[in-house]
């Protein structure tokens, strides 16, 4: 009963280093999302994917890249980490469903987050 699994849970990077955060879901969901959460703010969408091989920009995409080569995995990459990217990152997935009144009735399911510190 894994649901959405994020790897790693914690990471400390130096400015300029690169890394990839992995999100894996075992629910066969079509939609996947990457968010960041900063103190005093709500979750902000970085990138999302509506299916395997597709990605799209969210609210705060700069400095990040994503890939969805397999339906169950959604990778978030930081090519050159900056202190402003210190945050807690959450991945979420959602099933595609019959659209009701222009919205799916399927909620997003979240992983437990990755706490990333950039020094």
């Amino acid at each position: 009963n894994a649901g959405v699994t994020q790897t790693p849970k914690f990471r400390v990077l130096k400015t300029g280093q690169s890394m990839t955060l992995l999100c894996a879901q075992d629910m066969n969901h079509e939609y996947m999302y990457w968010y960041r959460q900063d103190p005093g703010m709500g979750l902000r969408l970085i990138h999302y994917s509506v299916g395997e091989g597709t990605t799209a920009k969210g609210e705060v995409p700069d400095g990040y890249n994503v890939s969805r080569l397999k339906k169950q995995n959604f990778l978030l990459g930081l090519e050159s980490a900056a202190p402003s990217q210190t945050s807690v990152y959450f991945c979420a997935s959602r099933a595609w469903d019959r659209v009701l009144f222009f919205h799916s009735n399927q909620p997003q399911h979240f992983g437990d987050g990755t706490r990333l510190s950039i020094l």
Partner: protein
Amino acid sequence: DQQVKQNSPSLSVQEGRISILNCDYTNSMFDYFLWYKKYPAEGPTFLISISSIKDKNEDGRFTVFLNKSAKHLSLHIVPSQPGDSAVYFCAASEAYSNYQLIWGAGTKLIIKP
């Protein structure tokens, strides 16, 4: 420019009493609203939602009310239990946005025994 606002960073309520969490929004195009609950070191979990064609939705101890003219929604928890202590996020989306959610900053609810 925050489109979804939760103006109370924290709320303390006695066990057994009613908890009321509030959320205001500015975008009149929002027509679907959700509440999520989050415990420390965990991801948010879905609690309850409401479409703009309704003004109330109930699920057990949880009820969400929507006042479209005031652009305001509230979450009522009755009765409040210790396990309800968590951060509650309000989120909203608009039609044709590909189901992107705009989130409030959250309200930390503390249930006192």
